């Protein structure tokens, strides 16, 4: 079952096309991260899901309904990117205010605890730090006990401890069957926490799948070692996509087939030392995908058929 379905969605603002024939699904009970460089259309996509705006063409369904109907909004927790809260209200008052919007809200104390704001309950919203303001926005998103959380850039401005507490709370919610869709710039966080990743670029879906599948699609690994090989010799090794040779034979390369490459080095009896092999990270995958800008459906950069990616399904 999908909690969000977008079918052939385009959204233009005058001459600017923010989303171009975008289709994606967000699965129930999962934490999905929507990634993309600035201007990729992430915030526009979230705005459409929140029912703040209407697609120019195509359909958006959230929890099976049109998100512009207020009935479905009661089931969604929203955390938009900017939400300047009334500075004169205390944290507890703001959360109590939002609780009154819902028929069956969580307890105010519980929402504050989940957002890690118990010791700030009586502070005015205007005197909170940037990270604390994001946590208050999180508490406001949670208070209605939503089935689906839609979150735009949650951890911007949070310090390391806040971030960790935030991901713990999200993990707890997901553990209880809630669905979460969030955008983030912190790829290592997405890699660690997300069940599924969607990569937007230029208003289109570039790739979608588990973080492992995306890494695998970019493929292989980063390998570094010291040896007496020339750049031409390094490039001729199995599966090498890019390589650099520096001072003292220090070699850095990216290969699709690290195992065959190492077998070749050993087989040819090339002396090498300081070997380091690192799997491609989600960040490597993201950079490769968005640099080429090709959709994974039309031009897969990886020859490996081991990781077919389906569009967010």
């Amino acid at each position, binding site marked *: 079952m999908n909690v969000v379905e977008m079918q052939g969605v385009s959204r233009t603002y005058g001459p600017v096309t923010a989303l171009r024939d975008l289709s994606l699904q967000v699965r129930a009970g999962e934490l999905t991260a929507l990634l993309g460089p600035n201007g990729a259309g992430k915030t526009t996509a979230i705005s459409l899901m929140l029912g*703040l*705006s209407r697609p120019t063409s195509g359909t958006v369904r959230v929890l099976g309904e049109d998100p512009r109907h207020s*009935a479905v*909004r009661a089931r969604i927790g929203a955390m938009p990117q900017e*939400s300047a809260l009334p500075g004169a209200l205390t944290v507890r*008052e703001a959360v109590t205010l939002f609780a009154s919007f819902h028929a069956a809200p969580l*307890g105010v104390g519980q929402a504050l*605890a989940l957002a890690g704001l118990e010791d700030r309950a009586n502070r005015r919203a205007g005197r909170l730090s940037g990270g604390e303001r994001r946590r208050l926005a999180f508490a406001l998103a949670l208070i209605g006990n939503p089935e689906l959380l839609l979150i735009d850039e949650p951890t911007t401005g949070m310090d390391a401890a806040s971030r960790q507490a935030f991901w*713990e709370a999200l993990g707890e919610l997901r553990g209880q069957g809630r669905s979460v869709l969030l955008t983030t710039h912190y790829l290592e966080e997405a890699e660690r926490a997300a069940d599924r990743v969607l990569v937007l670029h230029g208003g289109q879906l570039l790739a979608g799948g588990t973080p492992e599948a995306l890494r695998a699609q970019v493929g292989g690994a980063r390998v570094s070692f010291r040896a007496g090989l020339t750049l031409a010799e390094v490039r001729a090794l199995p599966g090498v996509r890019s390589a650099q040779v520096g001072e003292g034979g220090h070699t850095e390369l990216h290969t699709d087939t690290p195992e065959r490459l190492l077998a070749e080095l050993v087989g040819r009896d090339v002396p090498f030392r300081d070997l380091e092999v690192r799997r491609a990270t989600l960040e490597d995958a993201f950079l490769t995908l968005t640099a080429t800008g090709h959709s994974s459906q039309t031009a897969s950069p990886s020859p490996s058929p081991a990781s077919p990616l389906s569009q967010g399904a």
Partner: protein
Amino acid sequence: MTTPPIPAPSTLRPSAPLGPALRQLTLAESRRLSREPMFLVGTVGFPVLFYALFGLPREGLPLAASQVTLLNLAAFSLVSLSLFSFGANVAAERTGGWLRLMRTSPVPLPVYVAAKVLAAWIYGALSLTLLFTFAGVVGGVWLGTAGLLAALKLLLGMASLVALGLMLGFLIRPAAAVVVANVASLLLVFASGLALPLEMLPAGLARVAPLLPTYHLGVVGRSPLLGSEHEALSWLVLLGYTLLFGMVAAWALRRDEARE
């Protein structure tokens, strides 16, 4: 984490009744006003100052004239409250993202607007009480039941100015909104004869006065003391302005939504 388990979201969700939301939003608005008491300078401070300088009964200013001045300044106080506390503030909430967050909530936007109007009435009533108390205690000018009736009429007529404030808030950027609110309230207060008698204004300005909503707010506000054969007309003009400003505000709100 030691939080109690989160209850499963109920699959059958009745929409929340709007009463508690309206009450909480009005409470939030009232808290904002009472915690940022600068608004009192414009809404109570200036009218009290004007009354102390020009309105207290003295030789050459009989009690009846002083009472009329008091009612004019009462209307002045509501103009300032409507334009600053609501106009400029809505502009800030709109661009800061608070209004956007409200739109993602299950509460319909008219409830948010209704809470602002209710809070405007509560604080309007409070401002009038302060002003009338000052006049009574310092000047010995008590209006009695006429004052109560005037206050009710002024608060009802104030709806047109709250609509104007909301319209400006939805139309204009926050930085500009403060300037526009300043200019508009000066114009509305002085050109309508609320701050100074119309006879003291340039003749051209005095002729424009009957076009202003504040002129008619003055007419209905003074009517318990002076009576007015034209009171019904003034109510009609105020109603017309309320509808006009309200419609422009609604249009501006839609324009905002289309930009999302």
